[in-house]
């Protein structure tokens, strides 16, 4: 370990340290504080907002916001909806993304770079606009309806928007690059001779895949799944643009609780319980990730 900048070390470490404590850690602590202790929070900027909600909810005890959330099936259902959306779309992204990543990684070097650029372009294109694109496509007068009618599958346009299938489609579409790129990163490092070796030794293609390719790409699978699953749990934009009233999701509930109901304590309690729920997958993913990275070295 080299001793760089003996005097400047202090600023090198403490500028970002201080920034993150101030603008990341303290705000999170503040959410926690607001979610459990409302009575101290009657300052002028809040008072008028609070009086709106105080009619409906009591804030006598410190845990009342949490009790309120977990006694109302409405909130629990939205949690479960978000978790099931995240789970379904992670699996779908993996099933769709794996073969793409595999074949891109296995292509010849000059074709591979072009394909990689083609994979990165949607990743760079605005997220909001990619979701909007599906809103345009799925319209009653949209192109998918026209094609299906033209092919004779439909006789008249059906509404494909505003249901949870549209949400799953939107999520899979926008998060697919997050799955493909880490998978590609692991598959491209992988020695193709191993496949030939397995084949030469008489392994069936299925076994080559299950016993050679899959275990070696497992860290990529975990990284990709983490990058899809965790943000999708808090996803707000896609359900708002493509979803309907058939299923409500966690992100939308926080948003509405804050902006529509103006109930900041309940919104904070929801956010805190969201963090608690996400701690599990984050820790599991990171432990597995660390284990496999360690194994490879």
């Amino acid at each position: 370990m080299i001793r760089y900048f003996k005097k400047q070390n202090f600023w090198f470490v403490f500028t970002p340290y201080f920034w993150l404590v101030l603008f990341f850690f303290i705000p999170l602590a503040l959410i926690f504080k607001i979610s459990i202790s409302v009575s101290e929070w009657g300052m002028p900027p809040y008072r008028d907002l609070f009086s709106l909600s105080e009619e409906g909810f009591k804030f006598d005890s410190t845990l009342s916001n949490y009790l309120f959330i977990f006694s109302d099936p409405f909130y629990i259902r939205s949690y479960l909806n978000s978790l099931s959306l995240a789970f379904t779309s992670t699996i779908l992204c993996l099933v769709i993304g794996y073969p793409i990543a595999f074949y891109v990684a296995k292509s010849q070097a000059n074709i591979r770079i072009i394909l990689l650029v083609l994979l990165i372009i949607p990743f760079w294109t605005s997220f909001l606009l990619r979701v909007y694109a599906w809103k345009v496509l799925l319209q009653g007068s949209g192109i998918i309806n026209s094609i299906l009618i033209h092919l004779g599958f439909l006789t008249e346009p059906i509404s494909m928007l505003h249901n949870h299938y549209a949400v799953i489609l939107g999520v899979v579409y926008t998060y697919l690059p997050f799955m493909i790129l880490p998978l590609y990163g692991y598959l491209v490092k992988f020695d193709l001779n191993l496949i030939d070796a397995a084949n030469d030794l008489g392994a069936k293609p299925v076994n080559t895949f299950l016993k050679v390719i899959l275990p070696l790409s497992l860290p990529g699978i975990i990284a990709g799944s983490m990058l899809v699953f965790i943000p999708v749990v808090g996803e707000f934009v896609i359900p708002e643009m493509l979803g309907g009233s058939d299923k409500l999701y966690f992100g939308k509930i926080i948003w509405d609780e804050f902006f529509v109901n103006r109930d900041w304590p309940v919104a904070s309690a929801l956010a805190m319980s969201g963090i608690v729920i996400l701690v599990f997958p984050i820790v599991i993913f990171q432990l597995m990730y660390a284990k496999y990275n360690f194994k490879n070295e």
Partner: protein
Amino acid sequence: MQNTILRMNKLFFKIFTLVLGFSFLYFPILTLIAYSFNDNKRVMVWKGFSFRWYKELFQNEQILEAFYISIKIASLSATFATIMGVMIGFSLTRISKIPARPFFIFLSSSPLVMPEIILGLSLLLFFISSNHIIGFPSSKGQLTVLISHITFSVAFVAVIIQSRLSSYDKNIEEAAQDLGTIPNMIFWKITAPVILPSIISGWLLAFTLSLDDLVVASFTTGPGANTLPIVVFSKVRLGLSPEVNALSAIIMLIVVSAAISVYFVNRSNIKK
């Protein structure tokens, strides 16, 4: 013979997968671009080719102002985030004595996985209470959006820099030190050139993250700080907007030209 058929099958399956996969990725974007030239207020009913929506887009003061604000915030945010991201990456890989090191690691990696909605909510509540206690920030606006964007971008830049710094051979630095090079010189002559590509890609990622962010900006924005995603979202939340189609086409054009130039820069580098 059987081998050839097997190989043909494999090749067919490969091409089939790639064509299907890339069509899925590109079909929606390309349709949007095609319909941006549609001379009809009803987005999906084709009437004729025209640049009408591009003209209206460039006359739309609200979108133009939002675009300007977004670019300004994104470039400032990317610059500050890159400086601090380099500091973090450097601290974690090269400086051993950091007080509460695990806490520092937690702070610099958690924004990566924190859902935007929770980040936005926490920052808004923080800005309001700090305004109440010390009077800063005096109001929500471009400054609060900028601070928020720096905060979540730092983590992404730090990861990129960190992985580069930990993967390259530290012995070069140590050799330079043994040869009596001043630590400052080691940084500028050896470490900085090695991590420069990572610094550039970190800056670009931070820029894109800021330009793309809707949720955190919606929470922390105030009067006079409507960023492009906020304006676009308000336009398309309930319906379709032909101007947004035109905007998508322009953004795609920028992204594709950036990608092509990166491709050619890399290719000429490889040739060297």
